[in-house]
């Protein structure tokens, strides 16, 4: 199976604010490794065509009803024959083998050296059926491992496939689109090879409202793979070409087309603020926000991802997203029945909260806190985690007045409860948040009340227990909170008197006089 981009660990970008926060955010970015299984709600990188029958394909014209069964040796012989009929028969047999549902013999076919011949067949414009079978076989090989995709590329398939985009035969043309999609999905290297072979204008030229829907879906998917992957990102020129088409596709009614168009946008926006700016400037935001109301998970997921990416951009870009009304929808999505959606929504909110205090004010104005407190209390753990980040960012950037509102929203109860969560990072962030709130409370002369509240919630017991945590940062942080805020006044005065001697050199008392 190809390795998919699990949402858990995808790279995150965070807006910069203040030294501490940025450090924390970088740490979140650091790990791109995955222990988790790939998630189903992500878009696939490569797909085989395993359609069991295709009524409209050119293959109809020949060998109707005859099942041909050849050995690998016979296939090798067949493809190397000069008789187009034999070539067709062998290629079709190979394609059928590659299309079987389980354990297709990709390696066998590659090792048999069939690719160069199949690439040859792509160019035989006199025999569209042969072109079709070859394109299909190559599509399925390219859907394999990276080496198998590489074998297709090194067999010279890209140029002839692009040439097929202009084929008068729709089926051939569609299969070529698909094959290119698989090759592009392998990674930035082949993606850029396709882009630099000038495939994009040909792909875009295919889009028309008369096109069968399956074809349009294939084009959209291939375009999304051309937007996908980083290190490096696709070049500016390519993005400029693709964006208007995506905008156009985003108006389509078909959910699969919408889904893939949104995925494409999500890849483009998972980048620097310059690229985000390029996307935002197309005026796509209103449509995206409208799609956040979609009941289709495959549309909602990528459009939410895109919006989430956009608010990682500059304050100005985030402001535009807010102005378009994302804050009307995100609080509702926090209450969506799928935890994965709640998580994405919380993530988006965490980045709004990382903005200046007038963005935080917007969060309050749109009443984000009640659903946020609710997911912190009862949500799935991965949602709670994002929600904790939201709270942490909120706390760092909030004015005193905004902090008061946060505390009044009942945030402390779930925070204190999560201090026993089996996740060291989350525990540390909560300790930071609590310490920050206590310090703010001190400025407002409200510390005693906040301390009592934390004590009532069982917080002291938990923080005290964390003083013995194996993780040093956690134990120190807990110790600091206890020492600074929870030692009874009379005791603290006394403990202070026992502080260790400072390294202060003693100066002879008389030295002043002798000078």
């Amino acid at each position, binding site marked *: 199976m190809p390795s998919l981009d699990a949402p858990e660990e995808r790279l995150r970008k965070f807006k910069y604010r203040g030294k501490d926060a940025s450090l924390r955010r970088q740490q979140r970015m650091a790990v791109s490794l995955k222990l988790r299984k790939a998630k189903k709600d992500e878009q696939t990188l490569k797909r085989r065509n395993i359609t069991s029958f295709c009524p409209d394909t050119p293959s109809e014209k020949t060998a109707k009803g005859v099942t041909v069964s050849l050995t690998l040796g016979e296939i090798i012989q067949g493809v190397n024959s000069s008789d187009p009929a034999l070539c067709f028969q062998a290629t079709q047999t190979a394609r059928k083998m590659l299309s079987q549902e389980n354990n297709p013999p990709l390696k066998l076919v590659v090792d048999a050296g069939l690719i160069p011949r199949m690439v040859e067949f792509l160019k035989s414009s006199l025999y569209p059926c042969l072109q079709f079978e070859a394109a299909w076989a190559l599509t399925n090989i390219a859907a394999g491992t990276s080496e198998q995709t590489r074998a297709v590329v090194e067999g010279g398939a890209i140029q002839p496939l692009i040439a097929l985009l202009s084929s008068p035969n729709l089926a051939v043309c569609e299969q070529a689109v698909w094959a290119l999609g698989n090759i592009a999905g392998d990674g930035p290297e082949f993606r850029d090879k396709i882009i630099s072979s000038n495939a994009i204008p040909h792909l875009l030229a295919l889009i028309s409202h008369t096109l069968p829907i399956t074809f349009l879906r294939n084009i959209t998917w291939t375009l999304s793979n051309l937007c996908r992957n980083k290190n490096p990102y696709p070049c500016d020129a390519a993005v400029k070409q693709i964006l208007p088409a995506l905008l156009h596709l985003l108006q389509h009614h078909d959910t699969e087309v919408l889904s893939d168009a949104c995925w494409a946008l999500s890849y483009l926006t998972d980048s620097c603020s310059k690229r985000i700016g390029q996307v935002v400037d197309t005026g796509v935001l209103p449509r995206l926000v409208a799609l956040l109301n979609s009941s289709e998970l495959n549309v909602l997921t990528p459009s939410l991802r895109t919006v989430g990416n956009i608010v990682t951009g500059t304050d100005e870009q985030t402001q535009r997203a807010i102005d378009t009304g994302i804050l009307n929808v995100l609080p509702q999505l926090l209450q969506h029945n799928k935890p994965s959606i709640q998580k994405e929504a919380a993530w988006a909110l965490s980045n709004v909260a990382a903005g200046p205090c007038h963005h935080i004010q917007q969060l309050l104005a749109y009443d984000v806190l009640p659903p946020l407190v609710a997911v912190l209390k009862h949500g799935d753990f991965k949602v709670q985690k994002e929600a904790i980040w939201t709270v942490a960012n909120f706390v760092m950037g909030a004015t005193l007045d905004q902090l008061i509102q946060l505390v009044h929203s009942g945030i402390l109860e779930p925070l204190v409860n999560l201090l026993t969560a089996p996740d060291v990072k989350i525990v540390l962030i909560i300790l930071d948040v609590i310490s920050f709130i206590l310090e703010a409370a001190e400025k407002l002369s409200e510390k005693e009340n906040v301390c009592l509240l934390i004590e*009532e919630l069982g917080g002291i017991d938990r923080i005290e227990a964390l003083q013995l945590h194996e993780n040093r*940062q956690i134990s120190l942080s807990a110790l600091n909170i206890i020492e600074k805020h929870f030692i009874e006044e009379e*005791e603290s005065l006394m403990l202070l008197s026992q502080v260790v001697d400072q390294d202060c050199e*003693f*100066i002879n*008392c008389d030295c*002043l006089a002798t000078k």
Partner: protein
Amino acid sequence: MELSDANLQTLTEYLKKTLDPDPAIRRPAEKFLESVEGNQNYPLLLLTLLEKSQDNVIKVCASVTFKNYIKRNWRIVEDEPNKICEADRVAIKANIVHLMLSSPEQIQKQLSDAISIIGREDFPQKWPDLLTEMVNRFQSGDFHVINGVLRTAHSLFKRYRHEFKSNELWTEIKLVLDAFALPLTNLFKATIELCSTHANDASALRILFSSLILISKLFYSLNFQDLPEFFEDNMETWMNNFHTLLTLDNKLLQTDDEEEAGLLELLKSQICDNAALYAQKYDEEFQRYLPRFVTAIWNLLVTTGQEISVLHNAIQFLASVCERPHYKNLFEDQNTLTSICEKVIVPNMEFRAADEEAFEDNSEEYIRRDLEGSDIDTRRRAACDLVRGLCKFFEGPVTGIFSGYVNSMLQEYAKNPSVNWKHKDAAIYLVTSLASKAQTQKHGITQANELVNLTEFFVNHILPDLKSANVNEFPVLKADGIKYIMIFRNQVPKEHLLVSIPLLINHLQAESIVVHTYAAHALERLFTMRGPNNTTLFTAAEIAPFVEILLTNLFKALTLPGSSENEYIMKAIMRSFSLLQEAIIPYIPTLITQLTQKLLAVSKNPSKPHFNHYMFEAICLSIRITCKANPAAVVNFEEALFLVFTEILQNDVQEFIPYVFQVMSLLLETHKNDIPSSYMALFPHLLQPVLWERTGNIPALVRLLQAFLERGSNTIASAAADKIPGLLGVFQKLIASKANDHQGFYLLNSIIEHMPPESVDQYRKQIFILLFQRLQNSKTTKFIKSFLVFINLYCIKYGALALQEIFDSIQPKMFGMVLEKIIIPEIQKVSGNVEKKICAVGITKLLTECPPMMDTEYTKLWTPLLQSLIGLFELPEDDTIPDEEHFIDIEDTPGYQTAFSQLAFAGKKEHDPVGQMVNNPKIHLAQSLHKLSTACPGRVPSMVSTSLNAEALQYLQGYLQAASVTLL
């Protein structure tokens, strides 16, 4: 060092000597080993010995020595030499796993530790074949070997539970998962099969279950950071087997000891942890297994012998699940709830033999657990947590079920109290757990279950016990009753509390330490309660009828066995003084005698810091209360205390010295006239360097010196002028330290304020030079704030011109630089009302009484200075701290008062050195400006109007109006 027999022999000799009880033989041998451990082959010699020596003692000794050697030397520290040569490192890694696994258990443990220390540094990069080597041993079929591997793996992997996610960590985990997850799973399955084949063989089972425990711990470590793909794919295998193990019972594995955990319990407790981890973190994936686990863990709680760690983890699991709305249905059934209450909670609330033992023989520990909440790992607490968890969703039904139990337990008690008193204890505990929803030390219960009638229970079941004539009968129930009053003090109406006060006073006489301690603590808590208007809930008048008996019993309680330094009693004494105020005056002579005797006794060996602190607070209170009514009485206190104080100072009782200085400050400040000669005799001693070397003394000493300067500046100037350099030396030492510089300024300010100017004339310039040196070398915000206050105080005391002159005498144009670079830009940082006022008055003087400000190059700074002064009046304080100062401890942020090691009741009033001179500094500014403008008509308005900003100008006009003056 060669790997030779001769060297092995020598090493054996020295190892033997390190076990010698005689230090004269042992120490040199240890020294010798340390001196040769840097040689190549040394660790290999140790490994050879621990494998091949004939003498078992030497084997073990070699293994321990080896482990310690690895611990000290294996890590390669940057910029330090590598302490173990590469060839030895390679040889150790090549042999140690095999050696560990073939050694007897005692040595295996040492080598296993050594492997994990090495692994922490080298694994995985520098020890790539470790995992394969370990996994291969799983095939051996020898569970002695397998357990060795598992133990080592556990010590290598357990850090995954507490380290932060990082690329490095996750790369390692991925590597481990790839090599280890499948073999571990296979081993898990095989081990469980073996358990059923050997179901009747106790010794085989013991080994197999040890393996299962280790495997379950490894499962936890490997699944902690995130749910690995492998374990998601194999969840079925793991969870089904975990579930089976949870429901397993085998008599062969039970222990006889009630408090010691058997292997099966340990395993089950770890499985509960594993299930809780999945339930909390991987809910989506775990959902379909969860209900089965809930049932199994439910049943576990109901049926097993309820070993504490199982109880704890099982409850933890249930608590984490029952708060998720989509699992609420699993708990709703009335039968389930009833059986949990009946079979889990009630039995665990019982007062056990161990509790009884602690109550009688280890009361300090009992009090700490019961009163201060250090009872986290007790059965009662676990049961109590479960009650609270259940009450979040099922308060009504749970309260209903328990009310029945409470009643029946009380009936049992009533039938035969002397036999059944434990039933009543459990009933009280149950009511307490049920009723208390939120609790704080300061206020007791703050949110109570409204379905429980606390007052009724108090009247019917608590009061009768406390009213019984015999204070020593059923001490546990007495303690329960007193605790009930204490924690529900905010729920029980005041009239009932008032009734219980004499009862509590009576229980101060109980023999049981727990009972009289609780009585003292309850009184103390009641006396701190606040009523409306933020006055104390109980007034001195309400307590007046009991004053004598209260004081008598409190001091008598200190004579009861085990309570001679009981901090709760001493705190109650302090609190009673504070509440009763003048009402204690008649008793002061006896009280102070008893307190000084106590002081004398404990000063021989101070061991209870809280007790001591409250004792000094009580002494301060006696002084304050008495001298407020009769200042002359101070002499009596001096008579009573000085003898003990002298002894404390002479014997250098470090813990008490800061307190003594504070009490002396309080006494000295109480004197209205000139300083008594007894104090003056002490003065030179206070300047001794040794006293100032202890940080804890500094605030108290500064405070005392300030008192000397305030009361006795003239005496010092006339009779002890030779000590002035010493005084300034102290100042110099203090300002050199970032932590203590504010203390130095306190002292300096007192000198400036109180000493006759001529007595310090000759030192003034040097003082400023020292301050400038510190400014140049290590400027901090705290220092600047103090510096600003000082120069303004100086300006007030000696005049603006004097300030300008002294600056310019150090270096020409220095005054302008100070104005421009420090005063104008930093004045907004000054904090504290008195401090701000000093600065305002000082700057006003600079503006209006300093001729050079009007007609030299300094004139250009006049308006900016005025502007910054208006800013000081009107703008919010600038509390920003530069980045590089964040690491300076904030604990010594200065106030004008010393705040260190302070006795609350020895505190002095805020002192305002400009109080009498200037009342309203804004008006004062207006008047001063007016005066200046009359001296040079026309100039002031023009300076003001040309460059003062509009807003500031508006404020200024406001001041002028308020003062009814105009500028000419």
